[in-house]
């Protein structure tokens, strides 16, 4: 038996729709009477943070960081976490787990025949998930938003 990373490979399976969703119309200056300004040729779209932070709109959720267990990764209490449930984790991804009604963050480390779940707080021990044991993640952390 091999270690179960839940639904590995799922993202590759979304077929037709990438195109369906990328059909936003770009904004190209405001049409008005009079001589057109040359400057419109140089306009760029303004930055859209939604597009930057959200890969799959339907599967992105926000959580608040409630503690400092991941402080080594720069995540502190009060940070806003942007989590994608559909995203595939890779080695070193920070993954959200939901166990016993609590959400926790862990860094995922792949080894030859087990997976290690690490906190970046050195006082906390890492958890080992061996082959055959089920590891159910809630989502994968994509961005952390902080206010200064």
């Amino acid at each position, binding site marked *: 038996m091999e270690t179960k990373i839940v639904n590995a490979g799922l993202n590759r399976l979304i077929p037709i729709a990438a195109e369906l969703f990328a059909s936003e119309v770009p904004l190209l200056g405001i049409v008005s009477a009079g001589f057109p300004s040359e400057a419109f040729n140089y306009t760029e779209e303004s930055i859209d943070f939604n597009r930057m932070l959200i890969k799959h709109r339907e599967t992105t959720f926000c959580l608040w960081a409630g503690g400092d267990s991941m402080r080594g990764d720069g995540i502190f209490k009060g940070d806003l976490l942007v989590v994608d449930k*559909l995203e595939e984790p890779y080695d070193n991804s920070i993954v959200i787990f939901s166990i016993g009604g609590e959400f926790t963050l862990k860094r995922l480390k792949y080894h030859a025949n087990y997976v290690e779940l690490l906190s970046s707080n050195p006082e906390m021990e890492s958890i080992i998930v061996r082959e055959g044991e089920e590891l159910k993640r809630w989502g994968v952390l994509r961005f952390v938003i902080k206010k200064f």
Partner: protein
Amino acid sequence: MFALVDCNNFFVSCERVFDSRLEGKPVIVLSNNDGCAIARSNEAKALGIKMGANYFEIEELCKKHDVQVFSTNFVLYADMSLRVRGLLAKFCPEIEDYSIDESFLDFSGFEQYFDLKTYCSRIAKTVKQGTGIPVSIGVAPTKTLAKIASRFAKKYSGYKDVCIIDSEEKRTKALQRCAIGDVWGIGRRYTKRLLAMNITTAYDFTQLSRAWVRKNMAVTGERTYRELLGESCVKMETIEPDRQTIMVSRSFGKMIGDYATLSEAVATYTGMGAAKLRKQKSCAKAVLVFIHTNHFRADLPQYSRHIVVTLPVASNSTPELLHYALEGLKNIFQPQFLYKKAGVMMMEIVPENAVQGNLFDKIDRVKHHDLMKVLDSVNEKYGRNTLKFAVMGDGKAWKIKQERLSPCYTTRLLDFPVTKS
């Protein structure tokens, strides 16, 4: 081929996504006013809690078995429903949103390119992983059969969430196992009549003559009959109608007799309707107000009335709409009755930027606009009705009871889940 994607115990599943302690436990969600059970987890079903069971009748049972009880959190369920639909749209361009937890997909032409069983398993897995909501999918040549197939997918774990009816043999078998009352489109009245004729399954029904069905069950009955035989008659309804009206209405926690309390409720609904108008950047030219007594209390005098008030200029400003809605209420209110429900409908909706002005308009629309902007941003952040008008009152006398409401985990900043460490 059509598919019906049905979210399993949808409301309960929504709660479970954000509270893993509910996993494996009996959970129910109560209707508005915390009246009766409208969603049940499998564990709750196993305890014998029936759909629509009155809460006061099952309260003891719930306490005894530690059933987790929730009020309806429509904000959360609506958001999760949109997410599920959004994902489904990635798999199929033709979608009909049949209800908050069911969507039809039109797979015409897909068979040539995809193995539908694999394709649907992938849909179920993606929705489960991406939103946390488990779904059952039924696939068949007609929508009525797809509905039956989805029930099988939900009922028998052997199907692994996907049941396909794609042969005569499977169709016959499915119909033989489907109770007549469970067939989509056969109402309670016809069920009773058919059962009296000893027609107990969908299969028995299809053994009747078509002429009999047409004669005794009208066109809709015949359509169901043909659908069960595998001939597709119910087409997809994919075009979303324009939002021509916005309706906000609720039943009260208890019956109301005085104008002051009734006007608080109407004012609150008007405020909600106005906020919806602003959200979709439109204005209403007219507002309808209705009130009625409790139809289920035949012992009390009954009254039901509505009125449409036309505005001089289409508006989405809460104070302006409040003025006209309450003016309307004054006109239809009769003091000798006890009211159970009131509602406000925004009508003749036009886009915000296409509002026809009025020469004699005395309202400073820029000022109103700015005020509403502040109102909306506060309420968006801290929850609906945080900032409101005095006429809306505190709702203590009339608001529906929602004592076991979960947080709006996905839409409200302060309700986002908090990680433990």
